[in-house]
């Protein structure tokens, strides 16, 4: 409880609003200004519009703010339209060649309408069977997709150690496609069985027949992506995705108990219980997501580690905007960065890898443009 007091001091105005929507009527124009700028930095402007609408709070905003939110919604809708068109092309073309793809993350949310509200999706992510990976790559290259221009070292990093091939870009449309063959890096300690994910996949409702992960697996993928991979600048955004995914999954209180059990069982089956635990814990702490009580009672064994992680996530699950940054933020980022890299690869691989990445970045500083 003492620690809760320390956390309160540095919270972003956006986080405060997300946690307690009822404070909206008290905001002044400059506070709305800051709130929207934080939301924009967190890729949450479109989503903020949806959440304000849900809580009937749009009436408290000045017209200028409403204009900016409406513009964000337009941009988001246009992106969704483009994604649906691209997904249609990808699904029908690859299915024709006997290749199966399953959409992940943002694209999946857009195609199912779950956690899609105001979502910004810059890339399309798909999961394929490792055995079909080369064919998928080849077929994509046949119709105008090409690997993004990256260094040879990065190419090797992806293929040897990661769970995805280097991103592909469509030369005409400039869409970026991430092709995954698992949901965590190959060098991670406990690898989920990608076959199990693919076996449980579901078709989207409409006749387009795209495939996405099951509702449980979508939650677990989002959880492991946020709490293992460490792309923290999208952390708050990913957390709001989880909030909406949980709300959708637990939409019937009478089924809470059995759905919780199924979710935990599945997490165990895929070796990602820890990520699920953190997803539940931090959705509840940061966004006050309503969750069944049994979800909040599970706990891993190490209370000191939990205390450190609570500190770190409280300070990093915020907009990446100067108004939300300080010493605690820098320290938390550093700890989590190290932790995520250690999870991705053992120390003997990590240290050389980090050295090469730092050298690449240092070289860029001195390039004369």
């Amino acid at each position, binding site marked *: 409880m003492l620690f809760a007091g320390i956390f309160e001091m540095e919270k972003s105005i956006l986080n405060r609003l997300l946690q307690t929507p009822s404070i909206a009527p008290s905001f*002044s*124009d*400059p506070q*709305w*200004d800051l709130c929207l*700028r934080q939301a*924009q*930095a967190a890729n949450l402007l479109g989503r903020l519009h949806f959440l304000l609408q849900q809580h009937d709070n749009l009436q408290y905003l*000045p017209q*200028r*703010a409403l*204009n*900016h939110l*409406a*513009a964000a919604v*337009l*941009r988001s809708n*246009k992106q969704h339209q483009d994604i649906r068109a691209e997904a249609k092309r990808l699904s029908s073309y690859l299915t024709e060649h006997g290749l199966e793809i399953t959409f992940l993350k943002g694209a999946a949310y857009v195609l199912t309408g779950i956690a899609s509200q105001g979502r910004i999706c810059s890339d399309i992510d798909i999961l394929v069977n490792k055995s079909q990976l080369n064919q998928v790559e080849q077929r994509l290259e046949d119709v105008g997709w090409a690997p993004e221009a990256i260094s040879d070292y990065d190419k090797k990093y992806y293929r040897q150690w990661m769970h995805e091939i280097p991103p592909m870009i469509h030369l005409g449309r400039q869409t970026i496609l991430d092709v995954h063959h698992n949901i965590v890096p190959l060098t991670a300690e406990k690898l989920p069985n990608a076959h199990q994910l693919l076996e449980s996949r579901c078709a989207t409702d409409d006749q387009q027949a795209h495939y996405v992960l099951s509702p449980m697996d979508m939650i677990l993928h989002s959880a492991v992506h946020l709490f293992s991979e460490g792309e923290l600048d999208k952390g708050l955004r990913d957390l709001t995705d989880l909030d909406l995914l949980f709300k959708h999954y637990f939409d019937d209180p009478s089924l809470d108990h059995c759905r919780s059990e199924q979710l935990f069982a599945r997490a165990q089956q895929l070796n990602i219980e820890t990520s699920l635990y953190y997803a539940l814990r931090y959705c509840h702490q940061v966004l006050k997501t309503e969750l069944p009580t049994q979800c909040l009672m599970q706990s891993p064994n190490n209370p000191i580690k939990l205390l450190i992680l609570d500190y770190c996530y409280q300070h990093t699950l915020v907009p990446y*905007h*100067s108004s939300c940054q300080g010493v605690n933020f820098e320290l938390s980022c550093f700890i989590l960065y190290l932790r995520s890299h250690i999870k991705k690869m053992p120390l003997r691989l990590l240290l050389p890898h980090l050295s090469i990445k730092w050298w690449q970045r240092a070289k860029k*500083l*001195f390039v*004369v*443009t």
Partner: protein
Amino acid sequence: MTLILSTYSKKEFCRLVKTTGLNVKIGPFNIKLTSNVPTFLDNFYFLYSDCAIVGDDQYIDFHICLKPPSIVRRWYRPQVNFFINEFRPFKPLPIDQTMAFFEWGLNWTIAQQALQYLIIHSAVVEKEGKAIILPGMPGAGKSTLCAALVHHGWRLLSDEQALISQDATEIVPLARPINLKNQSIEVIKEFCPDAKFGQIFAQTSKGDICHVKPPVSAIEQIAVNAQPFAIVFPSYEHGLDQTKLTTMAKGETLIELINHCFNYTILGLDGFKRLSTLVENSQCFSLSYSDLNSAISTLDELY
């Protein structure tokens, strides 16, 4: 009394922009400007001196910052970065082009974010409450014609972006500095002896660039919208005998305008409806000219 930029001494202005930032009204937008680039601050103070200052209790639409990259490039071949809400959309440019960078950056920001307006890449001028939209590809001469018109009895709404309201019945003024390139600079210096010129930026990626300060009356009437009246596609043709104003069919005009419309696709059906209404309610022409006086009197005759 409204506080305007020139109410502050240049020294005080520079101090504010370097420290807390200063809020300025540009067109319909509240903009917070932060910068520590001395030549840019000089230029901005001159070109925007008539603009209203906005209080700290107001909602600010765009937080813009122009500053050098933090490490090596402050001293060696100095550069400047453009930030909009701490986001950097462009690669840095040479620091002596900061004023031009601000103008381009603000154009981009408005086109990308101000989606309450249908935005047409064009000059817009007004007389008697009625506006003429002058769309044109770069090089068609619309800025030159615009500069000429606003120093001969017309009000400047914009030299670059026409902001069309939600129901397409109004055009909202921006009244920003007029961007002239290469030979146009000399042409306007001669044709408009009253015009006030900023610094010339030589050899940018777009050639020599100079900004003409908006006439003070354009800033004073910043809150007065205009009614769409005519759409005229100007085309400067060197050595042309006679100025020619040719009526354009409306369907054809609409299709052509889409090529000049930044946010048409993203506005979807609403964009189509607005553009259709605009064209329906406007007379449509193409104008070929080589003599500015003749072009101006031809446009005068429309009224």
